[in-house]
């Protein structure tokens, strides 16, 4: 199926990069052959994004050599890299929020028609190129970014966690398009924390650990295991296998009163009528395709937005939130997916974790430093946060940043936690820790609502799942039955025997 040339298309050797005291890359090497889809793997903070930024001219390396098609290469800006045939789709959208899509394309001298073609291929045929970028959802931005990169037809295309923020249906299309590049003249460097995606589209995988290349693996049967072991090094043995089955399943007895009850919640736009109960001691999974109203639901539960209709009860009492502070007072704490929404990037880990303590006017006085340190340290320990760069959260890797957003609430004691895709773009080891933590919280009596874009997580972490489609709850499924095909069918609101549309599209394309 894959024809792989012998001459290297891209050859990067011994790349190093240091940010202050943090070594992002120690000695990273990456060799990509023409026509291959090459996975770049590594735990959070291993240096994948940094390597991509260096190859695409976004960041200058401290040391090392790069060549493209055997010729020395050293781009000083993404524009220069693009002229050299190297294009990257970064982890954050590289689109200008205040310009419409068409102007964004003009800015990068990309023709509109090929982009339209790729948008259609990637599952967004109806996208209006005169819409403002700031009005589009994140998933669409990722796809536009990708379509633009594809339209440039670069020699080397780098995709940094392109699927992390995509719903299942779009992920499918992206993977299909990526797979099409195998055996052509072009190569793709593909970064994802989802091994299953690697298995589907990649030929080989280079694994980074702590800024150094620790191995190159041919993808095939059994390669997953090798990659994980290379990625995690020593840690892999410590990672607990939560997958054995939800620990808390059945912990809920019928006579327990629900912690949180939603009845007929609706919002002005996509949320129509959502009702469910969340019980203490359980992790309730929430599954939905992109844009089915889950964002609005979480905004309402977190006190960020007011519902247009319906009611909300906490411990049987009606509540109405005007501000996140009200939700927090009622015990509902929220972990957003976008860490840029949750963290004070220039402040320390400690201040970030202690932030909710200072919120109420009554807590504006002098801080009890010792008490605060005790709580914060306990939370840091519970979550195993790497505090080497604790003085400024922006210096932490993504996974550790995500842990800080959770630790903030753990430090204060959790009654009800609302997690919106907390493992987006997080490596396996960290994911396991987060599942474990959610289970422990539930076991200690907390109620957890978990939205996830990775269907596999439902069985790993939840007791049961509800599926939201078109702003309504369309199914409730116990964890034991919630395998991926079942969830996906429910998410499309299909009868059990109907085919899943993406797969059909994927086959014909």
């Amino acid at each position: 199926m894959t024809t792989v040339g012998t001459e290297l298309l891209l050859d990067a050797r011994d790349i190093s990069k240091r940010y202050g005291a943090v070594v992002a890359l120690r000695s990273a090497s990456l060799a990509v052959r023409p026509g291959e889809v090459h996975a770049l793997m590594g735990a959070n903070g291993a240096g994948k994004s940094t390597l991509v930024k260096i190859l695409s001219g976004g960041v200058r390396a401290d040391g090392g050599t790069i060549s493209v098609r055997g010729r020395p290469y050293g781009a000083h800006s993404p524009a220069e890299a693009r002229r050299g045939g190297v294009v990257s789709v970064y982890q954050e959208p590289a689109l200008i929020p205040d310009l419409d899509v068409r102007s964004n394309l003009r800015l990068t001298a990309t023709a509109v028609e090929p982009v339209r073609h790729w948008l259609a291929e990637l599952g967004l045929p109806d996208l209006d190129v005169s819409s403002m970028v700031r009005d589009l959802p994140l998933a669409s931005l990722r796809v536009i970014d990708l379509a633009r990169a594809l339209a440039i037809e670069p020699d080397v295309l780098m995709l940094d966690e392109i699927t992390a923020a995509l719903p299942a249906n779009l992920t499918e299309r992206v993977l299909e398009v990526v797979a099409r590049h195998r055996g052509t003249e072009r190569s793709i460097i593909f970064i994802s924390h989802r091994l299953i995606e690697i298995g589907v589209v990649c030929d080989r995988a280079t694994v980074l650990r702590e800024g150094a290349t620790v191995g190159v693996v041919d993808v095939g049967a059994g390669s997953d295991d090798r990659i994980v072991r290379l990625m995690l090094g020593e840690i892999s043995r410590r990672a607990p296998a939560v997958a054995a089955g939800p620990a808390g399943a059945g912990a809920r007895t019928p006579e327990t009163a629900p912690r949180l009850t939603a009845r007929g919640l609706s919002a002005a736009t996509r949320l129509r009528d959502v009702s469910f109960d969340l019980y203490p001691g359980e992790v309730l999974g929430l599954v939905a395709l992109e844009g089915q109203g889950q964002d609005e639901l979480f905004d309402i539960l977190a006190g960020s937005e007011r519902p247009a209709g319906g009611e909300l009860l906490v411990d049987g009492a009606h509540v109405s939130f005007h501000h996140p502070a009200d939700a927090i007072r009622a015990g509902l704490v929220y972990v957003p997916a976008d860490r840029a929404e949750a963290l004070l990037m220039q402040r320390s880990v400690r201040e970030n974790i202690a932030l909710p303590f200072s919120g109420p006017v009554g807590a504006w006085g002098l801080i009890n430093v010792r008490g605060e340190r005790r709580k914060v340290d306990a939370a840091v320990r519970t979550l195993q946060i790497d505090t080497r760069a604790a003085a400024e959260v922006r210096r932490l890797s993504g996974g550790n940043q995500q842990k800080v957003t959770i630790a903030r609430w753990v430090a204060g004691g959790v009654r009800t936690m609302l997690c919106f895709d907390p493992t987006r773009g997080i490596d396996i080891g960290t994911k396991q820790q987060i599942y474990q933590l959610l289970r422990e919280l539930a076991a200690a009596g907390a109620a957890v609502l978990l939205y996830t874009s990775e269907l596999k997580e439902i069985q790993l972490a939840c007791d049961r799942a509800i599926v939201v489609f078109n702003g309504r709850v369309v199914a409730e499924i116990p964890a034991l039955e919630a395998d991926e095909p079942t969830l996906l069918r429910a998410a499309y609101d299909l009868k059990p025997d109907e085919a899943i549309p993406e797969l059909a599209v994927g086959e014909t394309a």
Partner: protein
Amino acid sequence: MTSVGTGTAERNPWLTRATWRRILRDQPLIPLSGLLIALVIVLQLVQPGIVTASWAGVIVRQAVPLAILAGCQTLAMLTGGIDLSVGAVASMAAFVMATLVNGQGPVVAVLAGLGVALAAGVVTGVGIGVFKVHPLIMTLGMSLVVLGLVAVYQLAMVLSGVVIPDPILWLGSETSFGFLPNSLFLFVPLSAVIVLGLRRSGYGRLLFAVGDNAIAARLAGVRIWQVLIVLYTLSALLAAIAGFLIAGLNKTASPALVESAVLPSVAAAVIGGTSILGGRGGFAGTIVGALILTLLTTLLTTLNMPEAMRQVLFGAIIVVVAAAYTRVTGEA
């Protein structure tokens, strides 16, 4: 193949330039104090014998009100704001106070001065916190409102006299032990409260939090409007205190007395290492920044510079200082 650069990986990380930079950034007082000392040396070289204890007293006495006003800017800038109304509010507080002494007595007068400042601060805070008016516009608008109101008030109070109460004269313009400005008796505890408050109080934390990431602060349960109303109220009260000191220093008060200190107060906070973009800075640096600016003004007066050259040098030196500071700490 081409070499992209040279590695520095094997060097001891504790002695790298980056480490030094971090130390300097986290401790802005070090480079700032260095600059301050350098300026003193330059002055001494320009005019030998000028640097004496009583001279230092004069400099400090002038710097104290500026530092307080720059403190207003520091607090506002930590949240990503700015307070251009400090001049108008400080002038108002001092003028209202000075015109009421004859009729109402000094205590009522001082309280009235603080009261009008408080009212102005609450209005500013509500505008910025609740109605989300950009701080630049809100405080600019408020300074027009305040100046206009005080000008109207002035016409009604032409015959009430302008009297600065003795305690304020004592604080503003007198010295103890021959050189120690009395304003320090107010300023030292005040700045201790501000410095400590920024580091160790819940409210201080929130100022940094709001400036760093207002969305995150909101999601963590911080009611930002409360923080902002309190902030601009505090700023107005601090401005009033500075206004009293300036009235004490000038032994008079007028509706525009403090206006000329507004832009220097912004400059002092910036030189002191507070980011105008929010989330980073502190009051200790601001104090040194105010001293540096005061010294700079003194230096230009001492050099007998014509006004045109003074302006050119003043501007150029601010750019150079800010640039050097940015270069040394590696931060904008």
